[in-house]
């Protein structure tokens, strides 16, 4: 699944399409990417102060307490978005135009994503969105979002 987009980049390119970039999990992020591969969106919850956070870190941003991963609802709202109409880097140029958004999850943390299966012309800040999962390597997945309701 790729983001909404039919227009082609102004550059001609005979090479085969490049796949979506995949993250390389590290000590902090491995549980996050692995869960996404299994269709689950995780956020971190501080075991001391109860704050939620993303992206995954070794300790709590608010109090430096220990954190644990918990499953998020996968629902949120659009905090902001843009329609990218110029990007020469592969594979993104093949997607143009596509939507980059910051989604605020129900649990509070914000993340960057692409909005898919949507009409970029009618999107509004504050619209409700829901996660859709895609595996991007043998070990990692990502969460894309789509408008709901």
């Amino acid at each position, binding site marked *: 699944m790729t*983001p909404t987009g039919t227009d082609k980049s102004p550059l001609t390119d005979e090479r085969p399409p490049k796949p*979506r*970039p995949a*993250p*390389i999990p*590290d000590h*902090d*992020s491995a549980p996050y990417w692995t869960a996404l591969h299994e269709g689950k969106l995780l956020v971190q919850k501080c075991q001391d102060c109860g704050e939620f956070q*993303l*992206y995954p870190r070794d300790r709590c941003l608010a109090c430096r307490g220990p954190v644990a991963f918990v499953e998020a609802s996968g629902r949120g709202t659009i*905090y*902001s*978005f*843009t*329609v*990218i*109409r*110029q*990007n*020469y*880097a*592969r*594979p*993104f140029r093949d*997607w143009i135009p*596509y939507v*980059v958004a*910051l989604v605020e999850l129900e649990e509070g943390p*914000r*993340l*960057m*994503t*692409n909005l898919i299966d949507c009409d*970029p012309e009618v999107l509004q*800040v*504050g619209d409700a969105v829901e996660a859709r999962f895609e595996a991007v390597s043998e070990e990692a997945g*990502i969460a894309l979002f789509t408008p709901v309701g």
Partner: protein
Amino acid sequence: MSVSKGRRAVIVGVATSDYPKLPEMSEHAVHGQAADRALADGGLTMKDVDGFASTGFFPMYATGVAEYLGLHPTYYDETNAGGASFEVLAEHAAYAIESGAAEVVLITYGSIQLSQMGRRLGTGGGGGAGFAPGPAIYDALWGNTLVGSYALAARRHMHQYGTTPEQLASVAVTMRTHAATNPQAQEREPITVEDVVSSRLVADPLHKLDCCVISDGGGACVMTTAERAADLGATPIYILGAAHSTTHHMNISAMPDLTVSPAAQCGPLAFARAGITPAEIDVAELYDSFTITVVLTVEDLGFCAKGEGGAFVENGGLGLGGHLPTNTDGGGLSACHPGMRGMFLIVEAVRQLRGQGGATQVPDARIAVAHGTGGMLSTGATLILGKEEP
């Protein structure tokens, strides 16, 4: 810092290199040309320099430029804050001079971005996921671009405060008006609000003319003590106050509030250190990577309330005779933007305070602010400069 009057840090020399297109020059030669001119402007030579600062995009950059220039400095600095770097380097140099760690600090910038890379980097590129070390991966997977990050901020500001594309456009229109009087400016043809909003969208809601130009060029400034400036017979420009701050690096998803830039922290700090208020500023040189950058900056520095930046900048609010004459050389939007424009802000602020502003001279300008913004609204650095001894 408590410091004797004689050791007060001052700027005695400034210069820009040739710009905006330098296909015949190396990046280091641009540094050198600007350095020679700034030293001559201050009545100094390379032999007087004991401190050197510059920055670029690989480690030990400043030591490399020092080598090229034949300098063996005992103070050096290459703090990289993107577009805000040169305000930070000048602040650091002031501390070094006032503490006695350096006597004459040369700060240089040079770039041949336009000749090297064409028009890709600033408005369309920077969107690859190839270079995303560590946590930078979180925003690198989605094809966001540099323009896209500022577009996200613009969209959020519009949503929260009703800011319009036409208000953003008016920033670009005013910068072009100033550029029209700058014979070196890259774009000098007058434009209208309608021209801006009807130019091609690069990343909604930002149009092509909401984005800075991409140029070759550089600049330099020379700082020393007030006492040395008096010996040289130079016209000193005082560093009245300075501060810098950061909220995030490459992940704009980590920015706490997309409508509040780092200027909201370092601006008030710099004004407090200078002991003045925004109302006392006569002329402003504000980083204008994109039109939204200026709207956020005028709010965050305290020239208007949060959310009122759109109304502040429209109808020539940033023009000569407006609320806040800004970017009197035409700014990055029209005159020159080689990648890290912060040095140009310092040079133009000093020229205004010396009365060398030419057709865009602000009458009797006594106090100026230069504010750099770097990365994806990641860094901010404020310098408050004055022509009179504080």
